[in-house]
């Protein structure tokens, strides 16, 4: 099981708690995690990635094992600790706004 942590506003939107668990088929990547997340929680569609382009929204960041993966390929394999559920995949609302 993959562990995912959402920012507070998306927890409310999806109706979930601080951390959720997902089954992800195939290689564990940013894309496969978010595909599974959107399939299980449809209100999150369009809230993390843009409709149409599928690009990460500008003020959303992805972290794993204390590293920023936001600019990595969405198909790059994530660390084994995330794939095995030892560490969570973090979806973060960027600190922005001044």
């Amino acid at each position: 099981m993959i562990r995912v942590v959402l920012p507070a506003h998306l927890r409310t939107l999806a109706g979930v708690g601080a951390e959720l668990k997902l089954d992800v088929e195939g290689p564990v990547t940013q894309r496969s995690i978010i595909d599974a997340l959107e399939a299980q929680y449809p209100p999150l569609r369009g809230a993390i990635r843009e409709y149409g382009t599928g690009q990460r929204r500008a003020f959303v960041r992805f972290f794993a094992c204390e590293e920023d993966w936001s600019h990595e390929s969405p198909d790059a394999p994530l660390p084994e600790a995330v794939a095995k559920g030892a560490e969570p995949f973090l979806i973060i609302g960027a600190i922005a706004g001044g």
Partner: protein
Amino acid sequence: MVGTRKGAFVLTSDGKREKWDVSGPHFAGWEIYHVKGSPADPNRLYASQSSGWFGQQIQRSNDGGKSWEPVGNKFVYDGVPGTHQWYDGTPHPWEFKRVWHLEPSLTDPDTVYAGVEDGALFRSTDGGQSWQELSGLRGHGSGPRWQPGAGGLCLHTILLDPSNPDRIFIAISAAGAFRTDDGGKSWRPINQGLTSQYIPDPHAEVGHCVHRIAMHRSRPDVLFMQKHWDVMRSDNAGDSWHEVSGNLPTDFGFPIDVHAHEPETIYVVPIKSDSEHYPPEGKLRVFRSRTGGNEWEPLTKGLPQSNCYVNVLRDAMAVDSLDSCGVYFGTTGGQVYASADAGDNWAPIVRDLPAVLSVEVQTLQ
């Protein structure tokens, strides 16, 4: 129902409109551009919820706002979107940003229209689950020449003609007003008579910064408009307009609305200028005309008459259908003012909400 920069609030009272309960924030932390109930089913509400971080959501309630569920938020332009003009006149691709206004059908609770930025009109016929663009609006020819106003290229006004289900009026800043007579398939600009000195051709077919249009349901051919500058009136469903600013201290402003029972009684909130978005002389005054324009009287009782520098945004005024007519408006300072006597006397319902984006009223039996 009050939409603010940081959530929605529901203000409730009985027919006397003296004591109010305030609930909220609903959708705390999100921008709520608009909340509106279905005229066909008062328990059906729609809300536009958005965030610079997480984009657009549409929320729907089937129980008068006790509970909400997110419904469809996929707003995709029809076909190849093309371009409109950017502020500097260069072509800019159409990009969906947010829903400014939701207008439920007069007859079907599952049908609702959404006015969006960048300027387009969408419709859902399944209670907000899916959305289709009425692309004849952008596609009628002038779309590539539309240019955003300071607040963005927003479609902010949707008026459904109660006497003709095929007729809809919309307005876009800063493209102007448009009308369809075939249920949204084809559209044409209805801006004849508007004069805007700030555009290259002041009498152009499109390019006018229309801030708001209002009608009385008993006379859908009579339209009232608050333009960027100028208060305007049309007696022929927008085919032509004439100015009715009359003795207003300034004819810049955002909202305009019509008394529920007197089709010639209209309300505006004059704002000093487009670069000074606050009331003239620091006095918050609603102006009422009982003659359909030109002759205006200031309404000041209960409103701050010194040191007031708030704005009242275009969707932030509404009327109820009680007798006598209640009038409501919200400010960027977070106050919501109410008058239970058609504007003669005012009192704040709340004073310290986040900046108010929209005010709508439901009159329940």
